[in-house]
């Protein structure tokens, strides 16, 4: 009997990894599309308040960001726990706001400088005293378009019941 017995391997064939790059590239593109570049290294605690009536910030080039909140734990020893302003990558005084606005405005195309928007990203526990002072500084610096950054609230009821502290 010339029956040739095929050599059967008992082991499972290895899983093909040929499509792995495709899968990873898909993930990569997903993240590239859905996320935005991180502008600065946050040095303050930031848990934004919630709101429902929000507009999306169009034209990223016209927007500059300002962060307000209590310093993160690792900076608390040096800067205390009271809410502070962060401009770019450093803590700042209220008096630094005006020169900062001037510098930021210079970065924008000249024809559109009057459309500059300052987005205030403040922690919800911040007292309005500080925010009011910031607003006054912004008015003095002629940066009149502002945006109070907030997270979307799930529903009206959630918004009312959410605590302020």
């Amino acid at each position, binding site marked *: 009997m010339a029956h040739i017995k095929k050599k059967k391997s008992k082991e499972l064939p290895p899983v093909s*990894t*040929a499509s*792995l*790059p495709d899968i*990873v*590239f898909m*993930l*990569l593109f997903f*993240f*590239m599309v*859905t*996320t*935005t*570049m*991180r502008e600065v290294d946050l040095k303050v605690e930031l848990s934004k*308040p919630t*709101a*429902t*009536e*929000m*507009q*999306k*910030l169009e034209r*990223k080039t016209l*927007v500059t960001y300002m962060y307000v909140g209590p310093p993160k734990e690792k900076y608390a020893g040096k800067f205390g726990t009271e809410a502070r302003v962060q401009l770019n990558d450093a803590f700042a005084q209220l008096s630094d706001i005006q020169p900062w606005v001037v510098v930021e405005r210079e970065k924008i195309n000249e024809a559109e400088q009057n459309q500059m*928007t300052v*987005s205030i990203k*403040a*922690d*919800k*526990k*911040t*007292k*309005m*005293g500080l*925010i*009011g002072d910031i*607003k*006054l500084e*912004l*008015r*003095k610096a*002629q*940066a*009149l*378009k*502002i*945006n*109070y*950054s*907030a*997270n*979307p609230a799930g529903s*009206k009821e959630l*918004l*009312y019941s*959410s605590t*302020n*502290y």
Partner: protein
Amino acid sequence: MAGKRAIPEINAGSMADIAFLLLIFFLVTTTMDVDKGINRKLPPYDDQLLEDPPPIKKKNIFEVLVNSNDALLVEEEYLDISRLREEAKRFLNNNGDGTCDYCDGAYRDPASSDNPDKAIISLQNDRGTSYSMYLKVQNELAAALNELRDELSVRMYGVSFVDLKDKDQIKEIKKMFPQKISEAEQLKVGS
């Protein structure tokens, strides 16, 4: 003699590693959060204007006070935040002098605002008010206005205000229900 030599295939085995590297780079340097918020315009800074404010009838002002305990005082009465929207709508949509021909279902309370164009919301807060509460109040006031604009837009053009495409129509609606929120100097009672 071999005429053609086959070009060897490029090894794609490390493709996954390269893609992973890129993926991790993007994961680290980017954030998920969308930039959304409530847009407001600040009044220009001018010392002289403060000394001579233009006369406004008291009934055309909707006074909203927030104290350092985050409690609301609206038109000299305590009010819960959940009712602010309704009260603001009633005030903005009031047709006191009867000149507003687009105020459908409007209240005609002669003691309240004359018409939507004259109605001004005055917002004052304490230095001790929390930012969260302040934003909630701003949100409710914006919501009141947006709801009124929405209703008007549906009546006039059959689509809600956010879906309006025509710039002139948007302008028209905005003119009929203008956003007039005036913010007074902060109080320094609490905190």
